[in-house]
Every structure is written in C-alpha cells, then in structure tokens.
C-alpha cells in the first residue's frame, strides 16, 4: 500500500505540474502539443546539471540549481513553439509535433556527445531529492517535488482567479479580439502562457525522471507522459484544482504497472504490457465521457491576427 501511495504521489505530481503548464498555455489560446518534448528537454537539462555539479556541494543547493536549470531549459524550448504559433501564426499542432520529434533526437545527441560513446544513458544520484517518512515499521519515500508541486498548484490557482493578470491571460484564450479592444496585448499574454507551460513542463520532466530511478535512457524521451498530461488537463476541464484531482486519478492507474510484481496484483497473472496500457485506456474512456460538454477555452488553437476582426 505504501508503495502504491509513493508512486501515485510521484506520478500524480508530475502529471499535475505538466497539465498545469498545458492549462496556462491553452488558457491563453495556444494548444501546447509540445509538452512531451519540453519535458524531455527539461529532464535532460536537469540531469546534465546533476552530473556536472561538483560532488561535495550542499544537497539543498544541488536540488535548487538543477530544478531551476530544468525550468529554464523548458522555458527556452517552449519559446520555439511561441515563435511559430504566436509570432508566425503557424499551425500549432504541427509546430508542437515537430518540437516533440526534435526534442528526443536532440536529447540523444547531446547525451551521446556528453558521454563520448554510443550510449544515450545517464547515471545520477537522486538521494538529495528523496525524503523518508517512517510509517510504523515501514517507511514512505516522498520527494521534494511533492512540496514544490503543491506550492505551484496554490500559486497557479491564485494567479489565474485572484489576480488581474490571470483574468487577462484567460481573456486571451476566450475572446482575444475583445481583450485587444480593451488594451490587453494578446501576443504578449500568449507568450507568457506558453512560457509558463515551458517552465512547468521542464520541472515536470525533471520530476518524472529523477525520483524513481538513477539511470535514464534518453532514447525513450518521457514515454508518452506529456500526452497523458494533456488528457489530464482535459479531464480537469482546464481548472487547477480539478487538474490536481484528475492527475491523482491517472497516477493510480500508472502506478499499478510499478507495483504489479510485489503486491497482491501479481496473483492475477497479467503481464506488464497490460498494466502499461491501463492509464491510456482509462484516459480514453474519460475523454469519451467528458469531451461532449467540454469547457475548452474558445479561442484555443486559433492564431490571433490583429487585422482579422
């Protein structure tokens, strides 16, 4: 049971962070299909930083620096999406897909150059990120991203609903022409939305890779987690608190694959492939049930053209 809680919290926070990122982007009117790629880039930057930082450094500082680097890397990469989708008014779906393809290839090449060999794997130590909480005889391992995630969730909620900036951002996703007519710079707010998504996507990618294993093969990217986060966002109806709930729901399914061997589930005799399928099947069912009366931002996916009224 503790194992299930551990993995649910781990995956749930990752899904929530990335889905919140997607939410900011879509609330400002830009569909961010590049989340998968942004996560890979963030993970790569964070892990590389861990490998480069000197051994004797204080653990707190290591954690802080690597998280900041992963966030900045995600932000910079997301600017590529912003440039094509906002400045050049290109098709957002195509741009996002291209960035996904590029991210994995880029990560593999950079890691291979860093390793100086044909291996795309990086080894790292993740002790600084983990905290053990004793529960009875056993212990529950949680990681720093749990706290970071909860703080970000609170900030995201306050930003979106309790500040004038949140209102401006949302208005750009609902009716950019109306927003523009009252003096809101739609292009700037859409860039801000995309940059937020890059920031959170970068941290999310790092949070996915770091706590569970100490070796990562960058050839696999982040194994479809960015897309799962998009499903979480839709299930969460583009609202922070709902996204948190949706993320935890999905995380339970995702965790089943990790705990299948060591718990009562082993008795069922199902293979890993079946458990791997589960979060995707669950999200499919959820999407079918919830897409009919979807409350998606009205102007998402449509490039804003000042000249078009």
């Amino acid at each position, binding site marked *: 049971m503790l194992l299930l809680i551990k993995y649910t919290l781990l995956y749930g926070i990752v899904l929530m962070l990335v889905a919140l990122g997607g939410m900011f982007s879509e609330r400002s009117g830009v569909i961010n299909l590049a989340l998968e790629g942004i996560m890979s880039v963030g993970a790569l930057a964070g892990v590389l930083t861990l490998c480069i930082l000197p051994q004797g450094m204080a653990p707190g500082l290591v954690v802080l620096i690597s998280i900041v680097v992963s966030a900045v890397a995600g932000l910079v990469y997301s600017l590529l999406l912003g440039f094509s989708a906002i400045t050049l008014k290109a098709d957002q779906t195509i741009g996002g897909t291209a960035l996904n393809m590029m991210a994995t290839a880029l990560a593999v090449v950079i890691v291979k150059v860093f390793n100086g060999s044909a291996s795309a794997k990086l080894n790292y130590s993740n002790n600084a990120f983990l905290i053990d909480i004793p529960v009875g005889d056993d212990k529950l391992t949680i990681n720093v991203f749990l706290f970071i995630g909860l703080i970000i969730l609170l900030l995201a909620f306050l930003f979106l609903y309790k500040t004038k900036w949140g209102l401006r951002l949302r208005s750009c996703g609902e009716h950019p022409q109306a927003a523009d007519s009252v003096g809101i710079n739609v292009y700037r707010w859409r860039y801000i939305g995309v940059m937020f998504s890059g920031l959170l996507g970068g941290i999310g990618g790092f949070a996915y890779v770091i706590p569970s294993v100490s070796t990562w093969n960058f050839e696999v990217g982040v194994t479809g987690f960015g897309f799962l986060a998009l499903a979480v966002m839709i299930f969460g109806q583009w609202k922070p608190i709902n996204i948190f709930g949706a993320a935890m729901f999905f995380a339970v399914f995702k965790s089943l694959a990790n705990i299948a061997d060591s718990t009562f589930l082993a008795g069922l005799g199902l*293979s890993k492939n079946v458990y791997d399928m589960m979060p995707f099947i669950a999200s499919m069912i959820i999407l079918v049930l919830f897409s009919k009366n979807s409350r998606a931002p009205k102007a998402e996916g449509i490039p804003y053209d000042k000249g078009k009224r």
Partner: protein
Amino acid sequence: MSNTTTMKSAAPKNSISRKSGLISATNSILSSIVCIIIGLLVGFIILVCINAEHAGEGFMTILIGGFNNINAHARNISKEIAEAAPLIMTGLSVAFAYKTGLFNIGAAGQYSVGALGALYFALVLHMPWYICILAAMLCGAVWGAIPGLLKAFFNVNEVITSIMFNWIALYGVNELLKNNVLGKMYESTKNKTYVVRTTSAGSAIPNMGLDNIFSKSTTIAIFIAIIVAIIMYIIINKTTFGYELKACGHNKDAAKYAGINEKRSIILSMVIAGALAGLGAALFYLSGVGEWNPNDSTACPAIGFNGISVALLAVCNPIGCVFSALLISHITVGGSCLATAYYQPEIADIIIGVIIYLCAFAMLFKMLIGKVVKVKSTSDANADPQIELHEPDSDKEAEKEDEE
C-alpha cells in the same frame, strides 16, 4: 452570340486559374526546398559544433545518403528504397486525413496493428502475400476507425485519441506477439518475430528480379507504394468523394449545410488513413526489411511518426509524398552512415525535426516566394480582374478582331 462571349471570357479565365494553380504549386515546392535547405544548414552547424574537423566529410555523408559505398555493395541504396516504401504509405495516411482536416498522429499505432495483421496471416496462416497485405490494411483500418468514430460522435479531439491509441496498440501488439497468443510468431532466441521469407516464402512480397541489383529486402513494395500514391491523388482531386472530404476539411459546417454527411466523411477518412498505414506495415515486414521486436516497449515505430514529416514536407500532396519519403529515407540512411566515432546517427532526426518545424510556417515562405514571383508575373495577376470588368463593347471589338 451571348454563348460565344461567355465561352470566350471563360476560356482565358480558365487558363489563368490553371496558371495561378501552377504558380502556387511551384511556390509549395520552392517553400519545401527552402525548409530542406535550412534544415540541412542547421544539421551542418550541429556537425561543426560536435566535431569541426570532420564536419565537411560528415555533411557529405548525410547528403549522399543511400549512395554511400555504392561501388562496394548496394546495401545502403537498397535500405533507402526498401524503407521509403512504408514511409510513403504512412505519409499518405497522414496526408489523406489532413485533407479532411484531421491530424492523424496515430499512423504509428495503425502501423503497429497492421504489422500484427500482416505477421499473423504470414507466419501462422501462411497466406499468399496479397492476402497478408489486405489483412494488414483491414487491421489498420479498424484501428483508424476508432478515433474517427470518437471524433464524429463524441467530439473527442482526434490528436489526443490517436496518441493514446498509439500506445495501446504498441503494448497490445507486443503482448500478443511475445506470448504467442495467436500462434507461433515470436522467436525467443533472437528476441524477434520469425523471418517471413524463410518461414513462409509465399507470404513475402516478390522481388521480380530486383534482388539481382539490390538486396533481398528490395521488393516490388516501392512500386505498390507509388501506384497507391497515384490512386490517392486521383481520389482526392478527381472524384466527388474526394471533394466531399476536402469540403469537410475546409469548413465542416458549410459542408454539412451543403448536404455532405460530415460524420461519414470523418470516419471514412480515418478508415482509409488507417488502411494506408497498415499497408505500410505490410510493405515493411513482408519485404523483410526488419522483424518486429516485442521487447521494445518504449517507443512507437519510427516509420509511423516519420509519416507526419513526409506528409508535411509534401504539403499533403500524395505525389509529393513519394518524393519527400525518398528524401527522408535518404537523410536517415545518410545519418546511419556517419562515422560513429565522431557523430551520432540521430543528427539525421534533428535535421528532419527542424525541416518539419519550418514546414509549420511554410505559409510564410510561400508568401515571401509569392512576392518574388509576383514581380515577374504582375501582368498575369492584373489580367484576372480586368476580364471580369470587360465591357460588352470591348468584347465585341475583340470578337471582330478574332473574326478578321
């Protein structure tokens, strides 16, 4: 009299519209070429960054692609042709769906399920190759139909659906193949499925003598792919069905208002797209280019995703897909020929990624090129509105001149 005038005014209009169509086609090709050149330049810069000393040599290796070592053995060029055939199919799959306004990112999943169908009919049932191909198409079509149905009836975004179905297909196919659920297909000593050509010779796509020039895996698959591309071109551009699909792509509501069943169009478009991707898998596995590895459960088949690149680079033109698939196969093979001591084969993937990223705003290039071309053809562009403004008198004068 009035008849002749309308005919006369219609004739030049038609030729001009054909001309402007030609110009826009040239612009599309030019903008794709600009994308390719910039992509290659970025690749060159990456090569220089990694190892400046061998950059020129490495860049040439990528440019030459399949023609590396052509004198010693035809391995690379065979690989290029053999891999181009399935790429054309997945490219057509994405392009066809795009004409109906659907972004079929699920070609990889349809390809996986198609592979399962092809392998089952070949390795277990020992059917002749054309039956195996049909089976693969059917499997792909079913897998493509589901996102289509969900889109049409439940308004679920087909991009998200097909991504989910990619992963479900990958895990499902791996599960069925690895545990030999459907029959003996998995050779555990080699970690791969059995080789089609040795297990069931009749199920392999025939070579027709091509293996004398190239390697064994070069079959008539490439010709099948080209023929299918031509058929798709005809369906999209010359039939009522194709027109209905395109109308749905341009404006779903307007198409519905005009009496087109938009739900049927969406579903049929995805069914055909799925069948094309399934056919691609059949061309790959029945030619024996490679075998399925059910232990590889972390990434969907690359050919499925590269279909997106093929389609976008071809601006979703079926004939263009043939050329862009050859180009992408060329660059990929070129990347795999890079000396691994200095460079990584994935550099080719970065180049392709950059090209697609640029294709996303190819419209911008198209406009820029259009401006340059416009300077040359200003007279033509001005001629168009003038015809409509023709006054009856001048028409008559023109006729008189003609009669003389």
